[in-house]
């Protein structure tokens, strides 16, 4: 899974969970994944250690953390960009959802379907910027 896909799936997963007090610690997950993965002495244990670290950051948001550590980040910069992208998109998505008028939306589209649509639009729109 590419970092871009992981960021968007994590964004979707975060909508299923209540936000704990220190939810934002999850932003460190990609960096930890890269640091643990690139540390030679830990090579044999890098996967379980990364998973443990992702869960320990915010246990109630473990699924989000685990999704963010799935990609193999090729550089520190890539992991930082993925972390920042996830954080900024999460904030952006929240403001977009606040703008939606749920009462005006068709009952069958309220909630999950409209959120999926918005994430899909964001994905398609931001995909070209991956080239940067």
């Amino acid at each position, binding site marked *: 899974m590419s970092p871009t896909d992981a960021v968007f799936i994590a964004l979707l997963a975060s909508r299923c969970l209540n936000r704990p007090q220190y939810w934002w610690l999850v932003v460190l997950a990609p960096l930890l994944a890269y640091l643990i993965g690139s540390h030679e002495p830990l090579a044999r244990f890098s996967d379980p250690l990364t998973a443990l670290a992702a869960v320990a950051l915010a246990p109630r948001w473990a699924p989000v953390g685990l999704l963010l550590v799935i990609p193999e980040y090729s550089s520190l910069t890539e992991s930082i960009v993925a972390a920042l992208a996830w954080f900024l998109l999460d904030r*952006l998505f929240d403001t*977009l959802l606040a703008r939606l008028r749920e009462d005006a939306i068709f009952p069958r589209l309220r909630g999950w379907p409209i959120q999926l649509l918005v994430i899909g639009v964001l994905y398609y729109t931001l995909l070209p910027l991956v080239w940067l």
Partner: protein
Amino acid sequence: MTKLIGPIIHSGKTNRMMMVLVLVSLAPSLVAAVMRFGFAAALLVICALAGAWLTELVIDRRQAFDGSAVVTGVIFALLLPVTAPWWLALIGGMLATGLGKHAFGGLGCNLFNPAALSRVILMGLIPGAWFISTAVTIDGITTASPLARESGLLAPTITGLLSGSIPGTIGQVAPLAVLAGGLMLVSLRTIDWRIPLTFLATVAFLALVLPPGIRIEGHAPWLLGNPLLHLVGGGTLLAAFYMLSDPVTAPFTPGGRIIFAVVAALAMMLVRFYTPYPDGAALAVLLANASVPLIDRLTLELGPPPSLEPPDNL
């Protein structure tokens, strides 16, 4: 989120009146497109318009006669290359109204510009229908965009762009007609002048200062340091006057609208300079639309209190 509460001052303009003005302003572009490409362009406009209007009629009969679906259909048609199949125009019109507008709750509730949303979705789902390399029509040659590297065997000239002899979508072959229509909307205060002016100025500035990327070097070197080409080529003018200026998907405050236009211009120029995507106008519109709630939040919380005077474009 800060919410604005009344008193609300009615501008005296109804939705229908605004839509009629937009349609009148689009007339020169439509006439130019039909004169240039003949029946092919007319067919695409009719199909997109029919798709948008019939979808509106099925979903919400009350809104079907306010003209908004017609405007959406026409703008979507202007984003199509003339080589596009008729069914793409029909589906595009349907998607623009159904998904772009009514999925979000109808007129006034949509987060994204419906025509831009439909174009981006269809470009992702059916890219082959958009990027037909070249096709000789009755009296011209058209492709997706004059900014596409595939069409860049010869550097496009400004006179060629202005006269419509350079490839483009049916709304891009007559930039002067788009400009005339846009200026009409600005002069009638149907749209806020800040958005197109800031957008076009930022595009020109970035065209001068951005360093070349691999997208340009060796493929389309004439795109460097050539602001006029960026202003009249691709979907720049259509985005400036007809997509970004949509009051529903633009920020509330004047300051927010300037930031919004800068975001859109920056996104479009980054796409043009550094990605394989040929134009980026529709993508930039959607990206700017997505940033609107954030811009509103920042400008309403950090800026001066909003005035009770009605905005210019209402």
